[in-house]
């Protein structure tokens, strides 16, 4: 006997509610996993030391103390200088990538010249290149320039990244070519067409690339640990790595290590919090066009 499917609005609605509830439960479960480590580092950093090592573990802090933060700063004598250099390196690297990457991306997207395709293809291929192959010779080149121990050494190898050029090119394709043609007929110079007409049209791309390069410089670790191995210039990531190596094993400094982790994560998190809407939509868009 064939079972007749009868449309029953009440039943359909109930099924939909059950289905959505299940999806929500799964999503909340994953959200807890994704965010819990942050919660745990924060409460570990702000609870008194005795509480950190207390068993059984309590998931809610009972006391509150700045002890861990104070201890962190008292043990880090050159925190200020490292913070300053990290900001300098990150900002300079971000702007060279946005400007020169934008300029090259625009040129590949909108200007005609011989070798355009082949040059771009060679650059694109290098995105698949593992960085480890080039990193030691890069050190050699930096050393020959006399820049070991200099903050510029951290900025230079990635100052005009291929990824940024590729990324910006996608956005310039989205701006109508007619815009530039009109300005060209009016006699505007090529650089002015780029700077005054096209550049302001791709702000969402610039913001997104800005966030990506900010994070990649701010969080870089292996390369700075090579070129800043000697000398007084340090980055926060290096300082924290050393701090953890020195004190991480002591049960007492768990809170201080967490305090350090929070401090180094904070700028990225704040920037993301403000610009996430921009960022996630743009990254999705750039992915579609790949």
């Amino acid at each position, binding site marked *: 006997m064939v079972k007749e499917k009868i449309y029953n609005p009440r039943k359909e609605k109930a099924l939909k509610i059950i289905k*959505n509830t299940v*999806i929500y439960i799964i999503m909340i479960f*994953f*959200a807890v*996993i*994704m*965010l819990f*480590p942050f919660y745990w*580092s924060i409460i*570990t950093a702000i609870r008194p030391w005795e509480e*950190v*090592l207390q*068993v059984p573990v309590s998931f809610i802090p009972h006391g509150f103390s700045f002890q861990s933060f104070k201890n962190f700063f008292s043990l880090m004598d050159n925190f200020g200088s490292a913070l300053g250099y990290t900001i300098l390196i990150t900002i300079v690297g971000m702007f060279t990538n946005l400007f020169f990457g934008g*300029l*090259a991306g625009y*040129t*590949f997207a909108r*200007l*005609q*010249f011989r070798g355009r395709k082949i040059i771009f293809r060679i650059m694109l291929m*290098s995105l*698949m*290149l*593992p960085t*480890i*192959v080039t990193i*030691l*010779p890069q050190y*050699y*080149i930096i*050393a020959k320039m006399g820049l070991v121990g200099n903050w510029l050494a951290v900025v*230079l190898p990635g*100052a*005009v990244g*291929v990824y940024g050029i590729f990324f910006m090119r996608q956005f310039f394709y989205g701006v109508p070519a007619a815009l530039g043609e009109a300005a060209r007929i009016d006699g505007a110079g*090529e*650089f002015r067409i780029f700077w005054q007409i096209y550049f302001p049209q791709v702000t969402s791309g610039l913001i997104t690339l800005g*966030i990506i390069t900010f994070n990649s410089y701010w*969080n870089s*670790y292996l390369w700075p*640990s*090579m070129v800043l*191995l000697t000398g007084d210039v340090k980055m926060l990531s290096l300082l*924290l*790595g050393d701090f953890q*190596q020195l004190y*991480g094993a002591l049960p007492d400094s768990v809170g201080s290590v*967490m305090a350090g*982790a929070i401090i*180094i*994560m904070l700028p*990225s*998190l704040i920037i*993301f919090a403000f610009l*996430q809407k921009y960022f*996630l939509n743009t*990254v*999705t868009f750039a*992915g*579609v066009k790949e």
Partner: protein
Amino acid sequence: MFEKIKNRERRKLTKMQRNQERLAYLFILPALVFFSVFVLAPIVMALYFSLCSFSQRNITLIEWAGFKNYVDIFTAPGLKSFRESLWHVLYYAVMYVPMVVVMSLLFAVLINQKIRGAKAFRIMYYIPSITSGVAVSFIFQFLFSAADYGLMNVVIGWFGGKPLNWLGTEGLAMFCIALVNVWGGIGGNMIIYLAALQGVPPDQVEAARVDGANKRQIFVHITLPQIAQATFFVVMMSLIGSFQLYDQVKIMTGGGSGTNTPVFQIYMMAFDPGSSKSGMANAMAVVLFAVIMIVTSLNNFLQNKINAKYE
């Protein structure tokens, strides 16, 4: 008379084009210079250096060594660690890549649901991806602590398990690092998958539904083949990343308990005050590159085969 104007017009145009071309080269010049100095030249240099003997700390003294470095990194006494490190990253990749691919796709499917609040979940799932590898390693080192207050031990205690020395046990330590990087790697790959999912033509899904396909069939036979390009990209990038594992290892285990990776070895070889054998470090980098090329080509080959099956 008319011809003349036309000719002049043409010449003017080509002159303008030539001018544009000159400027175009000027505009990409900075990019070209940086690309040549920091990407192209280093590739050639890596190959050359791998055949030389020198110290990273004293780069002026470079001597030709032939293939000695390549032989040494595999056979020199006390250097079986490089061979081991290659096995370690392979073990890591076998755990990490499938996990990150499946989880990223699952997360993308979830946030692609038409339900309220999906965007908020997208933000929450992405947050781990923007944070510093060093900071994340600190936090997870604490979570995986072997002590009683280590949270993973608390959790397995709830289920009656005995406390484990997570980061101090061979095999287990690398698994923990893989978990940490899956946690941190989902966000970016999820976005790539989300973009791919949004690009699946809805009429194809609708047509399959009308033909009586169930949800699972639609996912396997329509969605998965449609997003094959994204899968290929995610797998390849994850593979390339896997073989270059360093930050988390350096912080969480210091290379102990079977977590020693090739990049860790290369760094030690080149920069450890006691060692400074940069020729060998470069040879290791070239070997690692070759391994990555082989693995990614294999992936390429397999994906092409799978794609061909669906077409």
